[in-house]
């Protein structure tokens, strides 16, 4: 038990002392058993106060300190460093929150706030009395990052990491890099095409020796943890002989003889593709691929193109990395059958299909299924902002993308008329310029509420849309359209196997979940596993790259020093009382507990490298044999007693 405790009570200017009687609190605290020094201070975090605390610790040989000030979320590390500089173990320091959870929360009740502050300080003292001197767990780390997903976010991050001296494995599940961006034509605000952006990033990626790119690659399994992950990759064959000079004329002929036709995902099902394919000629890597899942191995292509090798097999590769960054992207929302006539009416498509349709059409006429298009009706928020069930969130990018597409249509085909049937336009920031341009182009905006959604019915020439327009005093407006475009947002990837393998938490919206949206926006609870881009939430290209760069900096700063200090918050098993029952193993989300035999007895053992210190194993133990360091029964129960005293 610690018995030479220093207690510092902060006024925080007047943020605390206006509502808590700090002087009185200090007088009472000084008399508590075990307290050696009690001081009140104007700003505990000020450099001068930090120096004073360090001097006090040294001159009075304090064995622990309590600082009653703001939330530990702000200054825990500040005061841990104070302890270290004074030669005190940083885990013999406890911070008590008497600002956010006391003076501010009870500024309507000064007497109550002072009483509460006293109980909180007492609880902090009881906790620090029982604190253990702990050492962070130091582990070595590999200065290597695995980036999963070679879209814009993944490639941009790879380049930055390589520039900072970190080795990168960049893996892409598809045969070609670029992700969703490669599917888009002209982009707002630069007017570059997705293809151009991807080309620029790819050329840069392959110029680095420290970046190894695998396409057709997926994680099969993961072991180890922060700083030292062992990853098993499966790499699908392209069925093209390595390092060969491909004759493109022969390739084109091989494509034409391939008897397999499948729906082309790149064009969102607007076209068909063969089993041997490239989505577009300038796609990267500049090597075609044979889609193993659909190829019937007839061998017709091999007869024409000897560079094709149908005998190639999956390759398994083991790599060792220090951190992992997920930039796996998102899928577009697929409307349900008959949702606004989708897949039941001929002329209803999604926004993503429209973007490909613009690319696939010539410059003279826009046509779909052989019919010339003149009137286009965009219906917004399809599959987004749903009150119940489905997706309650707003994908944010879709308003901008729809309006941008409408402008592209108007610029390419002058006689197009656009109707935007929306629930309120959210072209935030600079994107508002697009809304202005579209309005100036003569686009017509109609607005509806979610409880009175538009209807789409087949008509003689296309579709009839009826909408109760709140902008014209709730009148029902009926319009004819040649093409109905459902403005759909983003949803998490259909195949999210990787979340299971890496144990990455999923949020209520089913996207990957960060630790804290504001304070730790690219970190997950799995140490050294970061998330960025649209796998975390719907994002624009720019926002995806912003978050990728943030995750890049976090990953590099963690692993580049070659060693990592970890919080010593781990579960501990009392081997004398543990009678193996397996309940702790059942609730542990991280496979951090195993059964071992010691002295002829079966007991549980913590795998420290896997334990995340969540404590879920503790309450299920029937013999109360599990304690969490920093949250032991004696610490918690002594705090409870102090709070009620």
């Amino acid at each position: 038990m610690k018995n030479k405790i220093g207690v510092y009570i902060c006024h925080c200017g007047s943020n605390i002392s206006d509502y808590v009687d700090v002087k009185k609190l200090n007088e009472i605290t000084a008399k508590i058993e075990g307290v050696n020094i009690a001081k009140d201070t104007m700003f505990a975090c000020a450099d001068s106060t930090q120096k004073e605390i360090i001097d006090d610790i040294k001159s009075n040989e304090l064995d622990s300190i309590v600082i009653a000030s703001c939330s530990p979320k702000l200054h825990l590390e500040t005061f841990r460093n104070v302890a270290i500089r004074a030669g005190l173990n940083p885990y013999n320091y406890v911070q008590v929150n008497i600002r956010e959870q006391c003076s501010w929360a009870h500024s309507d009740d000064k007497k109550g706030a002072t009483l509460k502050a006293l109980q909180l300080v007492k609880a902090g003292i009881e906790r620090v009395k029982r604190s253990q001197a702990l050492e962070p767990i130091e582990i070595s780390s590999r200065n290597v990052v695995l980036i999963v997903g070679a879209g814009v976010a993944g490639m941009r991050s790879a380049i930055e990491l390589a520039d900072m001296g970190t080795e990168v494995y960049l893996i892409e599940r598809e045969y070609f890099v670029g992700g969703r961006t490669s599917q888009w034509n002209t982009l707002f605000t630069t007017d570059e095409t997705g293809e151009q952006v991807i080309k620029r990033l790819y050329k840069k990626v392959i110029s680095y020796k420290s970046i190894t790119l695998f396409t057709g690659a997926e994680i099969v399994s993961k072991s180890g943890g922060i700083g030292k992950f062992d990853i098993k990759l499966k790499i699908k064959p392209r069925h093209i002989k390595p390092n060969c000079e491909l004759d493109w004329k022969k390739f084109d002929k091989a494509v034409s003889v391939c008897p397999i036709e499948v729906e082309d995902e790149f064009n969102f099902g607007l076209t068909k593709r063969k089993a041997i394919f490239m989505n577009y000629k300038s796609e990267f890597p500049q090597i075609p691929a044979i889609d193993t899942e659909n190829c019937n191995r007839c061998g017709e292509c091999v007869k024409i193109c000897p560079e094709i090798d149908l005998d190639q097999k999956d390759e398994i590769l083991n790599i060792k990395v220090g951190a992992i960054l997920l930039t796996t992207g998102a899928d577009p929302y697929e409307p349900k059958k008959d949702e606004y006539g989708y897949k039941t009416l001929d002329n209803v498509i999604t926004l993503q299909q429209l973007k490909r349709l613009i690319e696939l059409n010539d410059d003279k006429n826009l046509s779909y299924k052989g019919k010339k298009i003149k009137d286009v009706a965009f219906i917004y928020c399809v599959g987004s902002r749903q009150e119940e069930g489905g997706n309650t969130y707003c994908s944010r990018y879709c308003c901008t993308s729809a309006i941008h597409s409408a402008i592209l249509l108007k610029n390419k085909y002058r006689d197009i008329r656009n109707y935007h049937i929306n629930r309120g336009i959210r072209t935030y920031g600079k994107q508002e310029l697009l809304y202005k341009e579209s309005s100036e182009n003569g686009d017509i905006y109609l607005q509806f509420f979610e409880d009175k959604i538009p209807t789409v019915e087949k008509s003689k020439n296309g579709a009839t849309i009826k909408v109760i327009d709140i902008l014209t005093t709730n009148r029902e407006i009926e319009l004819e359209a040649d093409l109905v475009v459902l403005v759909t947002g983003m949803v998490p990837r259909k195949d999210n196997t990787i979340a299971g393998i890496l144990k990455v938490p999923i949020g209520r919206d089913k996207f990957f979940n960060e630790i804290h949206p504001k304070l730790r926006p690219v970190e997950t609870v799995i140490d050294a596993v970061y998330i960025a881009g649209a796998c975390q939430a719907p994002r624009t290209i720019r926002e995806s790259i912003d978050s990728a760069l943030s995750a890049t900096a976090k990953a590099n700063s963690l692993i580049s020093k070659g060693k990592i200090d970890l919080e010593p918050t781990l579960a501990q098993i009392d081997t004398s009382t543990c009678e193996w029952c397996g309940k702790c193993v059942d609730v542990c989300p991280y496979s951090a507990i195993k059964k071992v035999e010691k002295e002829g007895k079966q007991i549980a053992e913590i795998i420290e490298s896997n334990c995340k210190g969540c404590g879920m194993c503790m309450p299920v133990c029937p013999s109360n044999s599990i304690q969490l360091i920093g949250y032991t029964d004696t610490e918690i129960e002594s705090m409870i007693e102090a709070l009620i005293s």
Partner: protein
Amino acid sequence: MESPKILVFSTEKISDPAIDLTGLLKKYYPSTVYTIAIPCSSAVKPKWIMHAFEKGFAGVFIAADGTDCPFSEKCTENTGNIVSHTHEFMKEKGIDPARLKMAAICSVCTDPFVKHMKSFLKFLTENKEQKN
């Protein structure tokens, strides 16, 4: 009459930031509400809750992570099980199970937190008056 004391088990990454934010926004709740922050709501031991009742807390509130839990998607289920087991222990000791409550408090759930605290305190006060 002294106001009943409530012990809140909050979670360091989700519900405790919400309680901090509540204070920051000066949204008032009773000053007899005390918080102990732990890593995850699924880590609260029934033993701790029973200790709180034994020592004089009128109510215990678990400010759970719910579906936002960064550790496990089964957090709600696990915390629910802890509450159910503790309710059994409370019944055995003659303690009204309604004195233990649990609700998901997300990192920005300031209004729900205040509402829960006020209604819980009201319930505990009325309960105390009836007994008196």
